[in-house]
């Protein structure tokens, strides 16, 4: 029998293959099956109102994802076969990848687990399908990132034990605690934190201008995984915006709860992304865009349009947005200065920017760089030239919430360190800002449990009582290989050999695995 194969419209296909595949439970109570759906106070009256504008069904999902993977792995192969690492702008660039692999890639894995969990705990079929797809996407992201960087691991130091480091190294507790905080929240807060505040509002700053920068520095493998991951992100961002609109449309009581989460997670995300500010301004030898410009385009302009759109629901921009906007002139410099001082305890190298780079920073930051930051770098440079490269041997005080050392300055006075503290239950806790202090006040029971790396070292929980032992034994950082100044490091010498400037010395070679 010949029947014409009539194609379903996108809308019908989505309806049949997602919503109509769900069923109402008959022998268990819904509340027992979905026990986490109510405790946060979010009221959902009709899950069918959930919109998924991409209307992606499983068959289309696999088709497009398979296509992306084929393209991506062809490029990884070509990159490795042609020794693509030899064509990057400068080996200093690889240090950004070391930070990426230890700081960002494990978050992709955390996101995979997080979406798998909340996908299980929503009773609405549309939300479940969207979370399931995102969960699989995130797993793909961590895998492709590890594959891309495995090539660099054959030729450069500091990439050998990223998962172990992520769980232990002092500055990596910043990204790790961010995701742990989100994953230990309820399902609606998790989506507000990760899908909305992180994916929609903030991750453009990492995956768009930074990846464009990777391309500009000759790193074909990274730009390709970055943009391949980001092609999934368009869906994730849409989920982020839809989940916010859905919660706000379902019940007016949801508005203050959602507003509080937006305030909290904007600030948490902003602090986390300070790491990216430093990657863009200091770790890309070929500059593509300053952190300040990226912030203006991707937060001030895009976030402005977004929050204007959400006004109709009674949502205002995040509480500490103005502080963040002021910080765009400062945070990358303050953070790089800190990492410069603590390179003895990092899996990547730091350096003083070259004269040309400092001039670029002066141009990009006319109001702040020459006035506040250039003199500091020039002072350190003189010390370094005298053979007294500065390392700070005092462990820094960490913020109880974001876990960044309290290195940032007051929003209106770049000569004053910003520091807040309060007493809770007889103990004093310290914070980097009003934003983080507010977050603590609202949920002290959660944040008093923070695993703060400096406290843990002093308490004797990190396999040693001095920095050297902790770095070597507990962090698995190879001393003299992975850490300290870039100039004269094994990576630097290897790069000079690659470029034909200097033969490899004894002990410089890193055999291909």
């Amino acid at each position: 029998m010949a029947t014409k194969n009539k194609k379903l419209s996108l809308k019908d296909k989505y309806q049949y293959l997602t919503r109509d595949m769900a069923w109402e439970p008959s022998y268990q109570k819904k509340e027992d099956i979905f026990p986490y759906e109510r405790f946060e106070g979010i009221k959902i009256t009709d899950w069918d109102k959930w919109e998924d504008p991409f209307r992606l069904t499983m068959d289309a999902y696999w088709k497009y994802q398979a296509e992306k993977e084929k393209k991506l792995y062809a490029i990884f192969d070509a990159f490795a076969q042609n020794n693509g690492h030899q064509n990057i702008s400068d080996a200093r660039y690889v240090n950004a990848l070391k930070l990426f692999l230890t700081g960002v890639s494990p978050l992709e894995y955390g996101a995979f687990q997080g979406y798998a969990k909340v996908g299980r705990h929503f009773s609405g079929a549309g939300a479940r399908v969207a979370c399931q797809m995102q969960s699989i996407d995130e797993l793909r992201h961590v895998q492709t990132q590890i594959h891309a960087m495995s090539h660099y691991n054959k030729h450069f130091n500091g990439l050998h034990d990223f998962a172990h480091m992520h769980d232990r190294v002092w500055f990596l507790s910043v990204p790790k605690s961010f995701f742990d905080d989100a994953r230990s929240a309820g399902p609606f807060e998790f989506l507000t934190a990760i899908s909305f505040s992180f994916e929609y509002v903030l991750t453009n700053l990492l995956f768009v201008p930074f990846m464009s920068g990777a391309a500009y520095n000759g790193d074909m493998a990274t730009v390709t995984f970055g943009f391949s991951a980001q092609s999934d992100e368009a869906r994730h961002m849409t989920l982020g915006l839809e989940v916010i609109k859905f919660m706000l449309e379902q019940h007016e009581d949801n508005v203050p709860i959602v507003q509080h989460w937006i305030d909290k997670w904007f600030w948490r995300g902003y602090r986390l992304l300070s790491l990216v500010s430093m990657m863009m301004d200091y770790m890309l030898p070929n500059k593509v865009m300053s952190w300040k410009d990226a912030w203006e385009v991707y937060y001030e302009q895009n976030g402005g349009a977004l929050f204007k759109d959400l006004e109709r629901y009674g949502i205002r921009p995040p509480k500490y947005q103005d502080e963040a906007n002021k910080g765009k002139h400062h945070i990358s410099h303050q953070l790089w200065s800190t990492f410069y001082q603590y390179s003895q305890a990092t899996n990547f190298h730091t350096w003083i920017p070259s004269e040309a780079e400092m001039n670029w920073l002066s141009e990009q930051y006319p109001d702040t760089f020459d006035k506040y930051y250039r003199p500091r770098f020039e002072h350190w440079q003189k010390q370094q030239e005298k053979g007294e490269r500065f390392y700070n041997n005092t462990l820094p005080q960490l913020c109880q919430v974001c876990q960044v050392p309290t290195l940032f300055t007051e929003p209106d006075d770049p000569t004053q360190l910003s520091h807040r503290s309060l007493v809770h239950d007889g103990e004093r806790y310290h914070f980097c800002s009003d934003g983080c202090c507010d977050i603590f006040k609202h949920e002290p029971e959660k944040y008093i449990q923070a695993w703060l790396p400096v406290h843990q070292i002093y308490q004797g929980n990190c396999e040693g009582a001095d920095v050297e032992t902790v770095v070597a034994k507990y962090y698995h950082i190879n001393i003299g290989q992975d850490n300290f100044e870039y100039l004269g490091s094994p990576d630097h010498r290897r790069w000079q050999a690659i470029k034909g400037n200097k033969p490899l010395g004894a002990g410089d070679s890193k055999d291909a695995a």
Partner: protein
Amino acid sequence: MSQLAFIVFQDNDNARYLVEAIAEDNPHAEVQHHPAMIRIQAEQRLVINRHTVEEKIGREWDVQEMLLDVISIGGNVDEDDDHFILEWKN
């Protein structure tokens, strides 16, 4: 205040036709070229029409194929078989 909808594509062979189609259908849009990527922004609204893309690319084109080349978007999404729209509504 200005509200810009935007879309960013990888700078590859497919996307160049998409960008051509978008520029034709959105005369108010601004096309920006960055390393490895093309960013298009427009006040309030941006539309991709399947018909225009098919004309440019010279074959049948499924709106969901844009998922292969897109990097980022800004605006509320409205997609069906014939178009993909990004729009700020307020």
